[in-house]
């Protein structure tokens, strides 16, 4: 059985070590927070200037001055800290975050990431913090469906969409399989409702089985 987005989020969460500092990108990656064990001391960063962000705010908790990068009202946890944008992105660019989790349009076999622009000629470009996140974290995990709605693979030999970052992706979590992007190529870590051979036949990227 292929995974739904919550199951994918749970897989990502499973691979985040206790005590990690983590940035969860806008959209599906925010679901990862629901699966992080409360006692693991994992600290969430939001690039608009906060560490140890808590869950989404509800009801009277909502404070317009306390939002995440997706502009959703959130809460603070004990031990949180605020800082300005230059400090926040210095923290990212300086390699201090252990993991960031991002969505993607495409990931290449070398770990190139395309997640900010579909390349359509009339699209208005908008990048936000995507490139900063891609280049900064020690590990970049991508969470996406393996195939686009039109059936084309999103794990590709070369990205055709405009790039967000070069060779930055370490792991890819999809509905059908999880992958590690390694110096030796793309390794299939596990599959869901699909065989390794079928997966190989549907992707143009050479795959290796995990040992």
């Amino acid at each position, binding site marked *: 059985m292929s995974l739904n987005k919550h199951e994918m989020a749970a897989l990502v969460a499973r691979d985040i070590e206790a005590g990690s500092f983590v940035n969860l990108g806008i959209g599906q990656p925010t679901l990862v927070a629901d699966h992080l064990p409360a006692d693991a001391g994992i600290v969430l960063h939001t*690039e608009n200037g906060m560490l140890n962000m808590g869950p989404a705010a509800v009801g009277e908790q909502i404070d317009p*001055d306390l*939002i995440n990068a997706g502009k959703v009202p959130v809460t603070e946890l004990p031990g949180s800290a605020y800082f*300005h*944008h*230059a400090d926040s*992105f210095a923290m990212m660019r300086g390699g201090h975050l252990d993991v960031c989790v991002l969505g993607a349009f495409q990931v290449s076999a070398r770990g190139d990431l395309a997640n900010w622009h579909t390349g359509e000629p009339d699209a*208005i470009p908008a990048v*936000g913090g995507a490139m900063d996140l891609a280049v900064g974290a020690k590990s970049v995990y991508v969470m996406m469906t393996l195939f686009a709605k039109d059936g084309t693979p999103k794990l590709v030999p070369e990205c055709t969409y*405009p790039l967000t970052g070069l060779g930055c992706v370490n792991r890819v979590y999809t509905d059908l399989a999880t992958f590690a992007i390694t110096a030796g190529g793309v390794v299939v870590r596990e599959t869901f409702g699909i065989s390794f051979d079928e997966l190989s036949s549907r992707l143009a990227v050479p795959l290796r089985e995990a040992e």
Partner: protein
Amino acid sequence: MSAVKICDSTAEAVDGIADGSTVLIGGFGLAGMPVQLIDALIEQGATDLTVVSNNAGNGDTGLAALLAKGRVRKVICSFPRQSDSWVFDGLFRAGKIELEVVPQGNLAERMRAAGAGIGAFYCPTAVGTPLAEGKETREIDGRTYVLEYPIKGDVALIGAHRSDRMGNLVYRKTARNFGPVMATAGRQVIAQVSEVVDTGVLDPEVIVTPSIYVDRVVAV
């Protein structure tokens, strides 16, 4: 000469902003957005502006209203396209506004460089992407960097939480965002705050923007 002016009105706070100015506008979403100062700038009438802000306006108010009045020649921002950025979208598609898209961290760091007297810096962000096209690159210790230049403002409009009578500022939660950086990068810095308190009330350990950066303050 450098002492802060505590203004009685937002009109007084934005008085004298010249046509053709580069205006840094703080805020991320509505948090830290100097909405009343933008409204006053619309009233004030300055035009042919270059606006530097994270987004390019939402709905029909604030920055979007400034754009709708045709006062802005160019926007430098990280994320213009939002579900409610129809004003910007329309102007852009009609070829009536210039756009420079800058990664969010580079936007902050380039303003930080302007405020810190740094001439330019080598940044790893955007290497190999369309946003680095045409920019100078350099390999340092085996990694490729793009040369990025400062973004200075003639004016910065920021939203803070409290100011003392000297212009020392503190912020609230994630509303801090771009304010402290823009305060260093603007030649003239205008802050709207919730409250002006007596000098000495703010703990010297917790001041985020020291008075040296602030020219005008208005409570809204």
